[in-house]
């Protein structure tokens, strides 16, 4: 795809004015960095980072059958999800492969609000249009921008603008007026930090972006740091760490399979997924700490201690927080136990690696204290 075919978000001019380096990602001209990936990564872990994620796909699924229809293709229980809550899930094909990962929630009393990945959104929306039946309608919200603020100071920053946001716990969501306009907001993100994702009308995006950036605790953060932050948080990137050939069990995403849905086995690919749960998958996504040498990146081979190739790295790189190289990849389950010593081959050179728990860096989501 050439640059002039790239789409732009409502914040494109703001990124360019701020001197961002722009790259094509998911069909959009996006900021990969402003001052530098490492500095932006650290700023987000220590303060608050502001991300333009307007390239992602936003939609509503409404109608009397919206939830029942949506549930045919995702393994989460959305029928019992309370109003004002959202849930991570997976759009599954008939073979149980992951077409996309997504967030879906009930911010208002009108069906579901769903956010999907930029690179998959056209296919996802086409899939849903083709497959939703009965009284279930897909409405693409392409007149909206999506802004994420992430980091330990994100909550204080946002509460200064909109005190109501202090009442949100992790994965709470709502449709309400923020900055004087109609927004969808959730306390969630893709960095492992506390923070919010706010869907705003496209026409108001630049004003709200600049308003939030006036706070000295906030800096704009590019996609480069977004990737290294999500890697440290152990969060998969669709198209790399999981794809249409990967099941939720292989992808180590079994937390997304609701108990009630497994019992009912009434979602796409349930046969394969339940079989893998019972018998174990052929391969599983693990975290690796790479103890020497160059960063092990997507495509690097993983070998056992006898030198047999057993799998591949699906994403990896330096962890600015830990100061070592980390990676995710697939290995047969017998090599997936924490502490298993393996090798990764980078440009043919074996480097020592160890299977470690994900997230690599502890998540710091805000959980509301339980009320008595």
């Amino acid at each position, binding site marked *: 795809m050439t640059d002039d075919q790239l789409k732009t978000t409502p914040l494109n001019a703001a990124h360019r004015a701020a001197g961002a380096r722009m790259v094509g990602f998911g069909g959009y001209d996006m900021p990969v960095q402003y001052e530098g*990936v*490492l500095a932006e990564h650290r700023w987000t872990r220590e303060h608050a980072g502001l991300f333009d994620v307007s390239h992602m796909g936003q939609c509503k699924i409404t109608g009397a059958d919206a939830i029942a229809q949506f549930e045919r293709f995702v393994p989460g229980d959305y029928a019992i999800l309370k109003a004002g809550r959202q849930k991570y899930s997976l759009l599954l094909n008939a073979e149980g492969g992951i077409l996309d990962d997504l967030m879906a929630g009930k911010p208002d009393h009108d069906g579901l609000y769903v956010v999907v990945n930029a690179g998959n959104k056209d296919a996802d929306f086409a899939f849903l249009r083709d497959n939703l039946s009965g009284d279930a309608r897909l409405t693409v919200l392409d007149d909206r921008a999506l802004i994420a603020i992430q980091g330990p100071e994100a909550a204080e920053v946002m509460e200064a603008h909109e005190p109501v946001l202090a009442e949100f716990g992790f994965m709470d969501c709502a449709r309400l007026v923020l900055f004087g306009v109609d927004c969808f907001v959730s306390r969630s993100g893709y960095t492992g930090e506390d923070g919010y994702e706010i869907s705003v009308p496209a026409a108001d995006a630049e004003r709200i972006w600049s308003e939030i950036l006036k706070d000295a605790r906030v800096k704009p953060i590019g996609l*480069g740091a977004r990737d290294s932050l999500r890697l440290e948080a152990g969060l998969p990137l669709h198209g790399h760490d999981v794809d249409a050939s990967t099941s939720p069990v292989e992808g180590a995403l079994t937390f997304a399979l609701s108990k009630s849905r497994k019992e009912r086995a009434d979602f796409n690919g349930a046969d394969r997924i339940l079989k893998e749960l019972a018998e174990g998958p052929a391969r599983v996504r693990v975290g690796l700490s790479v103890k020497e040498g160059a960063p092990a*990146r997507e495509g690097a081979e993983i070998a056992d201690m006898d030198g047999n190739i057993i799998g591949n790295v699906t994403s990896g790189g330096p962890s600015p927080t830990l100061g070592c190289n980390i990676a995710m990849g697939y290995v047969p389950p017998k090599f997936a136990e924490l502490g298993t010593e393996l090798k990764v081959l980078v440009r043919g050179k074996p480097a020592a690696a160890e299977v470690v728990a994900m997230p690599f860096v502890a998540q710091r989501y805000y959980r509301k204290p339980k009320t008595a």
Partner: protein
Amino acid sequence: MRFTKDHEWVKVDGDVATVGISKHAADALGDVVFVETPEAGKSVAKGDSFAVVESVKAASDVYAPVSGEVIEGNAALASAPETVNADPEGDGWFAKIKVSDASQLDALMDRAAYDQFLSTL
């Protein structure tokens, strides 16, 4: 100092060429997190990939601007790869090569020609 279109630089002292990547290249890469330099004794041909430089996001090959024998790789970059960003055309050098064919240097750009080349990118 002379430059290649792949953004390496060469500085010649007698028959020894010190080689690195240009400030333009270092800035374009962003934060350098890993550098693999060649070992002494390795012979390289002009255009061969003889080193690797990695930013947070990607690994890039560094090509030999001249043919010859490596007499030293910059071992300091192993523990301090950020030197490539801080001083790309000085302490961030990659290797010293004993030049086998000095005439290869003639084809490289001087600073003015390289700046001119950058302005066309």
